[in-house]
């Protein structure tokens, strides 16, 4: 049953991915304006444009272009960026680690914050504390990451300037990175000034991304906890002499977390989607920031590559969530 679920999910993931490839390909082709003309200096001749158009393969028919592009993608060749004149895969890989580190940090913040609020709310259910937490999370939830980001820029960047509002790391720090995972590499190589500076730059964008998700986790997990805490097996644990907190942590949390998990998966992809604008806001050198530049500059190969990478990431996350749900749930585990 488990292997069956895995195979089924994988096959639908491939169909979805193909759909994404088609949509993005069509979308960037119907965009008005000739990207080749844009990249040449104003005095370029028709001949120059035609030559460059042929070089990038834009003279062929759309289906032909699609097949060529997809064939390349399957071999790991995403084409060459028009504006940056570098292979797309290298560009994407150089920016992806920054976005991943930011997203994962935001996820951890959201899980910790939302989980804590949910447990406290469930422990104090029926009291003013719960009502206060409910109202707070409803308000926090309705404000999107973009606005939180702006608010933080204003509060902690200008009015009380304690954090840097742009970039990924203090440019004065001298350090040769072997990878683009600054935090991971900093920890592994014991350079805690690097880690500290990177985290300080990440804190505000990560918080902006994390707050709505934290509020959602707080709401949903608390609701699930309260439902579980009405069930008889938690009553049995209470009769057995376990304290209310022990009952929540020992019996209720795992059962309540299961239905929450699916939601967190979908919401995590939304969070990563949010990095696009939040990175822009904080001038953070991630994939999303590059994507917006690519769109503004009509860099078709780069847009395609970035969108595809995001899609793969999202689909992989959903797949991982589905599978871990099956692994954590005894009903689905065997077979």
């Amino acid at each position, binding site marked *: 049953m488990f292997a069956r679920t895995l195979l089924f999910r994988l096959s639908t993931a491939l169909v979805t991915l193909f759909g994404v490839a088609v949509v993005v390909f069509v979308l960037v082709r119907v965009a008005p304006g000739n990207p080749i003309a844009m990249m040449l200096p104003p005095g370029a001749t028709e001949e120059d444009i035609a030559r460059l158009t042929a070089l990038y393969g834009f003279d062929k028919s759309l289906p032909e272009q699609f097949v060529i592009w997809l064939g390349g993608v399957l071999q790991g060749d995403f084409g060459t960026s028009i504006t940056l004149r570098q292979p797309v895969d290298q560009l994407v890989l150089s920016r992806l680690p920054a976005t991943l580190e930011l997203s994962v940090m935001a996820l951890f913040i959201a899980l910790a914050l939302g989980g804590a609020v949910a447990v406290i709310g469930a422990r104090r259910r029926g009291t003013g504390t719960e009502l206060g937490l409910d109202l707070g999370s409803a308000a926090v939830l309705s404000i999107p990451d973009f606005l939180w980001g702006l608010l933080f820029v204003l509060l902690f960047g200008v009015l009380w300037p304690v954090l840097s509002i742009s970039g990924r790391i203090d440019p004065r720090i001298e350090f040769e990175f072997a990878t683009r995972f600054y935090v991971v590499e900093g920890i592994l190589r014991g350079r805690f000034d690097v880690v500290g500076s990177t985290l300080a730059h990440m804190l505000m964008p990560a918080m902006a991304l994390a707050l709505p998700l934290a509020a959602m986790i707080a709401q949903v997990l608390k609701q699930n906890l309260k439902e579980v805490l009405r069930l008889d097996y938690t009553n049995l644990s209470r009769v057995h002499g*376990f304290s209310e907190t022990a009952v929540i942590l020992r019996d209720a949390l795992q059962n309540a977390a299961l239905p929450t998990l699916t939601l967190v998966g979908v919401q995590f992809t939304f969070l990563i989607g949010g990095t696009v604008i939040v990175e822009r806001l904080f001038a953070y050198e991630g994939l999303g920031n590059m994507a917006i530049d690519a769109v503004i500059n009509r860099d078709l190969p780069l847009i395609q590559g970035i969108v595809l990478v995001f899609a793969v990431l999202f689909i992989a996350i959903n797949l991982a969530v589905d599978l871990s749900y099956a692994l954590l749930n005894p009903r689905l585990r065997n077979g």
Partner: protein
Amino acid sequence: MTDRPTLDILQLTVTLRGGRKLLRDVSLKVQPGEVRALVGESGAGKSMIGKAVLGILPPNIKPTEGEILLDTHHLNAMTPVTRRRTVSKIASLIPQDPLTALNPVRKIGPQIVDPLIHIHGWSRDKARERARELLDRVQIRNTDRVLQSYPHELSGGMRQRVLIASAFAPSPRLIVADEPTTALDVTVQKQILRLIRELQQETGTAVLFVTHDMGVVAKISQRVSVLFAGRVMEDAATEDVFRNPQHPYTEALIAATPSYSDLNRSFSPVPPALIADLHAKIAAEEAAS
């Protein structure tokens, strides 16, 4: 039998936040070795009594007056922590719905054994031995396999057996059985009732048996408290209640329970006038107090 009851509830009042009283001046005793049935229709508060004793009332419901004596312990005078520990050593629970009474993500074994180790301080071997013994006693074959199973792998009847075994495992003095057979088919219900009765008689455990079914009351209990709107209408030996009910509500409740063997007597609804009278009487009492 000694004179001291295992459970002695005196004038217990339980109040919903906002002031509505769900139980009012409820008094009852359960003697060692006795099955006391609590019977009533939905909303009568019958489950509240067991929950109040065990300390598992929902957070918005609190005991406000009266005393609960479990053995010699005044439960309502204790701090929550001592109360919890005291109750867990003396009493246990057979819950209503076997489908939601076992934690779905944990195996059966730990669910029986853990409380014996953590609360009663037994060694792991002794606890396992006891679990096997009890599962054997409730006629579960393949004890080892069942201990290794997850709840969803067992049928409803099997789960209820596991729960009975778990309730009797620490040799409690009192068991609260909260509608333990309501969710089961009649044939399974009979087996489960038989098991509870046998184990109870062998161990001399006192049982507070909550049910809505006068038929079950007749079969399992020695004494019965009939509840209506949070009050005890009648408290008597089961035999007397069925031979000669003292309260008209008790009589009506028996008459409303269908019985295929006596076509003349049963199948008559509880007279609405009676219900209205009872409510009026209660309202008058409330106003007077």
